């Protein structure tokens, strides 16, 4: 059943850019093994999962068919979640660095009051820092 990725390797790498390099191959192989083409994944990421959501709430019994069945639909939905988690960490990293800068110039009491979080949380946010690299553009903005 296993298909060769062939020339699709670059397409997959671009589609799964939000995945850390060490898991990218595993994720791609799972899609390939289940006959999910990269453009289907790409389309779901481009609309942030709108089509998946619309299909599942349509009430149709065969809603998953246009994604290739329930298993591909589950894999594609998981990829939307992975992208959302990636964007979440990217925003957290920015927040962490901004809070670190604030903590240099203002007391944690003041920063906490302005961000409406506890003082303990302010330190936690500042300590989190950045881990890893992040994508430069969200898929739905297209290529520059």
């Amino acid at each position, binding site marked *: 059943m296993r298909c060769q990725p062939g020339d699709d390797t670059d397409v997959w790498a671009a589609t799964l850019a939000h995945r850390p390099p060490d898991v990218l191959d595993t994720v791609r192989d799972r899609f390939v093994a289940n006959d999910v083409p990269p453009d289907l994944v790409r389309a779901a990421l481009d609309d942030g999962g709108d089509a998946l959501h619309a299909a599942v709430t349509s009430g149709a019994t065969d809603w998953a068919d246009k994604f290739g069945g329930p298993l591909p639909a589950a894999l594609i939905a998981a990829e939307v979640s992975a992208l959302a988690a990636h964007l979440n960490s990217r925003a957290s990293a920015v927040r962490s660095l901004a809070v670190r800068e604030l*903590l*240099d*110039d*203002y*007391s*944690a*009491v*003041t920063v*906490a*009051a*302005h961000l409406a979080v506890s*003082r*303990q949380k*302010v*330190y936690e946010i500042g300590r989190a820092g950045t881990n890893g690299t992040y994508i430069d553009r969200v898929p739905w903005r297209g290529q520059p």
Partner: protein
Amino acid sequence: MNELVHLPDPAVRSLVHPLDVPEARRPFLQYWLITTLTDPSVAFCVAGLLWFATRNPAVSVLAGLAIVVGGWYAQRCVRDQAWSFIPGKRQDRERPLPLTWALGANTVFAVLFAAVVLLIALRLGRPDVPAQVRVYTFDFAAATAVLVLASAVVGLVRSRESRSRTLITLPGVVATVAAVAVSYGFLLGG
């Protein structure tokens, strides 16, 4: 964005310590008390005393660990709380504690340490301990006390900087020398 904490004027005092900020004094005092009472050396002495009291090594080891681990966690919370009143750039992290505070912290350890040494001496003084073991142990303790005393004397006379550093260790030095001297009575006197 305005600073909500009322801090000393940067022109007068650029670096600020929690002791300079009224709201921060209380958590800082708590931090100092917790670090003093849960210091590993203090926990070690308390564990030793508990061993004597309960005759159960497991209880004493667990108590010692609980003191160190619980203390480490608690001091971190109140320390962050104390410093949270001061912006990062103005934090005076290097400022030494007032001399009396440092002396107080070392006195806590010194008293506990002397108690442990005296209890060990009492135990070694019982008739079931061979005289050679008693003499051997005491000689080692006496040699240690002499070294401690000598290093304190050197520290006091060497330089002004080392003098203030040595001064705060004096409770421990006095406790060591006194405990070993009293032990002489238990072990070898009479």
